[in-house]
């Protein structure tokens, strides 16, 4: 059974790029365009890893992370933040919300796969 990864980003290009890379590497991918859609979709199926952008309309990455951690089903599921900011404060804030790790944008596909494999072996 291949693992299911949800990519949450308001940029279709970004979603497409990530999806393509992950599908190519053998994962199943679910896309959501913001945190609200991610929460709805994650209730309908089981997700093994979330990759989420931080700044999104409706529900942002931080709120999504807190929302997911509040669901017993995703209490321990890895959540990786896609962030343009490499400042420590932002990362710490993300960690405090329950994120597992982060990838700094822009990133190479190898970097993406390395992180995915690391948190979701």
């Amino acid at each position, binding site marked *: 059974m*291949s693992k299911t990864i949800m990519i949450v980003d308001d940029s279709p290009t970004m979603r497409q790029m990530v999806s393509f890379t992950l599908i190519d*590497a*053998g994962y199943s991918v679910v896309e959501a365009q913001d945190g609200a859609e991610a929460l709805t979709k994650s209730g309908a199926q089981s997700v093994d890893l979330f990759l989420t952008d931080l700044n999104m309309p409706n529900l942002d990455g931080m709120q999504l992370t807190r929302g997911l*951690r509040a669901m017993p089903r995703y*209490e*321990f*599921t*890895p*959540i990786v933040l896609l962030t343009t900011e490499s400042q420590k404060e932002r990362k*710490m804030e993300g*960690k405090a919300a*329950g*994120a*597992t*790790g*982060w990838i700094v944008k822009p990133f190479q596909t190898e970097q993406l796969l390395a992180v995915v494999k*690391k*948190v979701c*072996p």
Partner: protein
Amino acid sequence: MEAADLLAELDSAMLELESHPQDAALLNRVFRAIHTVKGSGATAGFTEMAAFAHHVEELFDEARMGRLTITSVMIDLTLQAKDLIGQMLDSAGPATLVPACREVVESLAKFLPHKVPTPRDGKSGPGAAAQSRQRHNVYFKPHAQVFFSGTDPVSLVDELRALGKATVTARIDGIPPLANLNPKHCYLAWEVALVSAQPASKIKEVFLFVEDESEIRIERDLTPVAGPTEVDGPLTAFLNIAAQSLQAADGFLSRLRGATEHDGACCKNYLRILKTFQAAANRQGQPEPAALLGEGIRLLEGTIAGNVTMSDQTRGNLAEGHRKLTALIQSLRKDDGRDDEISPLSAPSPIAASQPLPAAEAAPQADAPRARATIRVDQEKLDRLMRSAGELLVARNAFPLLAKRLTLEHGLSGMGKEVKDAGDHISHIAEDLQAAVLSIRMTPIRTVFQRFPRLVRDICRVQAKEAELLLEGEDTELDKTVIEQIADPLVHLVRNAVDHGIELPEARAQAGKPRAGKVTLKAYNKATNVIIEIHDDGGGMDPARLKRKALEKGLITSEAAAAMDDRAALELIFLPGLTTAAKVTDISGRGVGMDVVRSNIRQIHGTTKLESKLGCGSKITITLPASLMVSKGILVEANREEYVFPMESVVQTVRLPRSQIRRHEQSYFTTFRNEVFPVLRLADHFAVNRRTVEIAWPEEVPMAIVETNRGRIAVAVDRFLGHVEVIVKPMGSDFAGIAAFLGATIMGDGRVALVINPAGFV
């Protein structure tokens, strides 16, 4: 499963390539097979295997581009690689295969001079890495809340293990008493002694996401990294190849021992193994094994070239060489200090980590032996054991005969008794052995049953029907072979039950039945049989309609139809080409079905019985022997020939007075306990070229009431000779079409008797 096919394909392509090394189409075939193995391996998460397969793929990529000519050494290496891939997919702990893989990769790299083997996690190319190998002691104590950040600390420890040779110790002193323990907190810490060519920064990188809130110490340990006993050296790799080759050779030797004619395939495979082994020995600079192997190769090549049955002497020489080689390798293993090597302690499982009960102390150590508690065994070996155990059971039948002869013919009654006692003792042991061996092969029918709820649900959805499936007796055990072969017929029957049996909810409601239909699948033991029943409360079958259909299709004549009772009419469903479904759906109704079901079940010596009541539903009862190998039987004599009836088919044996047998036209009947049975005279039934000159019935007729496909019949025999244990040997392929016999068996005194197949002999 897919991988197994691919590997088999690879195997055959490689063997062809051996004789046509330049064949471009073949090269492409090999390349594609390896490429697909790699691709699907990576997809399925066998990344190590994929990385390994990549090296082989490279070789054939070069070859098909014409930049490289495949030699037999490369073929050997590839086959070796293929075997390793197979093992990686099979074994739970591929880590033990790493040295052998590395060996192959290194050898392959020699053929690809312009390509530098890509070092992966510092695993390949131990020669280059050895100089810079360093030892680090890593201490890692994650934050108690680590799980809530979606991090599995064990996977981080695994990442460390991937960097080099790691010895992992779990620290459990942080675990509080059970009462205070929060199962969602992490109380464990790990100490990892890591020998790796990777710099400290790489080790630090592992903890990138957790470094802020975890306690992490990475210290360089300056004690020098020891030599080959610490790090897997090429000698170990060679010894691994040696062990595998010896094991394979062992199998071939025993197969040759049993061979009565030239077994070319076996010799060739044997030769291939020896050559691979020899190549490895040469690389390792081990002249002694190489010389011994050369001798074996010479013998085998001679046999293959001569295309003759291997002489006992040649076989003896081969076996002798094998023994010497085994001893030699054994001593090398001892020198290497690898005799009792155990793989490094595995990290505690995620469960142990997230629920660190105090008992978890023993968990890491307990993991390793538990993984070894089951072993995979070649089915062929198991079958051999089965046969031997079975033959032992039959052979013991000689003891009572011997005892009898000693007593009666030689007047040594004391001796006779002793022989009989010894025989009884052996009997008991043989029975225990048989039971033990049989139990190995027994599998609960659950494995087959568990797919049905889904099947029923899917059909219901497609057809807008409602049905519930009740499963009973899922723990009933059957021989593995039987399980494998009963699956398809059962799928068919369950499908039929829903598709044809259960009516649409409205129709059911009109008929006063609950809207949801009920299909029951039940398995249970009865004597030495296993019974499987499929019962549905659907519409049932209409005998009249079956007759009409069969007539329309010209499967029966109108006279036959007229003479048929309902029960016989129901039997029509088993005729090839008959279907009563109003329309052909993709689920069923093509009329290739029930006949195949019955013949499949017959193949595993089972019988099928159908009962159906219009409007109330149908029930199919399958009776199967629980095991195929040894069975009890009743030995009978008819026309001076001996036959065996399988015990499970004989309902009862009786002696009836001649007066109770009545004749009706060409047939005989008898009444026994108010039931009428057709009588079949075994002597007549199997009488070849001897149209009976009306043999007179004896005063008292011994009869066996036997269960057949057409119901119970009474089989008249000349004499009952008693109960016997038989192993049924299938008939040679020339006689395979004869349905009347299951096969033949060898009696305790060496005579051969035919075993009757009650399902097929009328």
